[in-house]
């Protein structure tokens, strides 16, 4: 049986790219069937299939890295590059929504009444729940750094506690934001204000949920002894993503909630 004489990971053939691509097709055609015909079965199938694909694909990455030892230093470097590039692409994604907000709010048209916020829009008070949300996410940035340092010092108990606190803060943010959504006097269809507000904060909320899920996965892996004090890239990737989510919120708070009111 031949063995490789290099440090790189030649990944074995896998069915998940195919099931992922087909799931994407089901999601998009499912959206069409829902929008035009109020028919939700295809969309539900797409959501389920993509969730199953993601679970199994990342499960396999854990198997290849933690159990088979394929994540050598050069491979880990590649994974780091990959995560950084992905986060950069997400920054560009949010840049679009911020562009839309600033385009409309810096030069308000006659349709908005010539000022921002537009006539008839009652913005949320930035010094109330939005300020609390800012404090919650900033605190979660502290707790995740604490978790990382505890992990690097091989302190299992503290790293688990700090990670759990970070997850709890993330869940608390989501709960607060959902209750804020029910308190707004405007909806997504209330002109350009509603559109920019809910598209930007809505996608941010989705990213908070994704980040919280990523952190929860890290918590489970940490409990199962997957991480060592020197090798825990999965955790670092989750931490980078979480800090990105925090920074996006700060931009949202300052631009839309504070300046935009």
């Amino acid at each position, binding site marked *: *049986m031949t063995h490789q004489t290099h440090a790189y990971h030649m990944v*074995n053939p896998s069915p998940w790219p*195919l099931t992922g691509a087909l799931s994407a097709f089901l999601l998009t055609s499912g959206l069409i069937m829902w929008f035009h015909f109020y028919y939700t079965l295809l969309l539900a199938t797409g959501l389920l299939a993509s969730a*199953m694909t993601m679970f199994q694909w990342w499960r396999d990455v854990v198997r290849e890295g933690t159990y*088979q030892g394929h994540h050598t230093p050069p491979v880990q470097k590649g994974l780091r590059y990959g995560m950084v590039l992905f986060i950069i692409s997400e920054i560009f994604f949010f840049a679009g929504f911020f562009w839309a907000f600033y385009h409309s709010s810096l030069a308000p048209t006659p349709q908005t009444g010539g000022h921002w916020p537009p006539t008839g829009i009652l913005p949320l008070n930035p010094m109330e729940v939005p300020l609390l949300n800012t404090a919650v996410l900033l605190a979660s940035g502290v707790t995740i750094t604490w978790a990382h340092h505890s992990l690097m010092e091989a302190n*299992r108990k503290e790293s688990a506690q700090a990670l759990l606190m970070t997850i709890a803060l993330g869940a608390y943010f989501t709960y607060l934001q959902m209750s804020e959504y029910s308190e707004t006097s405007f909806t997504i269809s209330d002109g350009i204000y509603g559109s920019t507000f809910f598209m930007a904060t809505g996608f941010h909320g989705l990213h908070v949920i994704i980040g919280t899920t990523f952190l929860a996965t890290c918590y489970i892996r940490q409990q199962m002894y997957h991480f060592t004090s020197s090798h825990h890239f999965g955790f670092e990737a989750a931490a980078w993503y979480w800090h990105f989510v925090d920074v996006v919120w700060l931009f949202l708070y300052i631009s839309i909630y504070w300046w935009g009111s």
Partner: protein
Amino acid sequence: MLWSLLALRQFGQRTISTTSHSHFKNRVPEKQKLFQEDDGIPVYPEGWVADVPLYRATMILTVGGTAYAIYQLAMASFPKKQD
């Protein structure tokens, strides 16, 4: 500040024993042995009893769903009558 956070956290927790309070045993060495066996089996079907059923369910859902989606799109393209 971190110490007060820790104290706050401990206040809400059950008594912590001196041994690890995690509910998991370290099964990583067993898994490493299992997955490093020179059996030529890829990662996705081996490791857990539900691996193969999960794989089959995913394939059925995606391939079947795609066929159904194409059928639905074909039906939507020809309103009322079918060629």
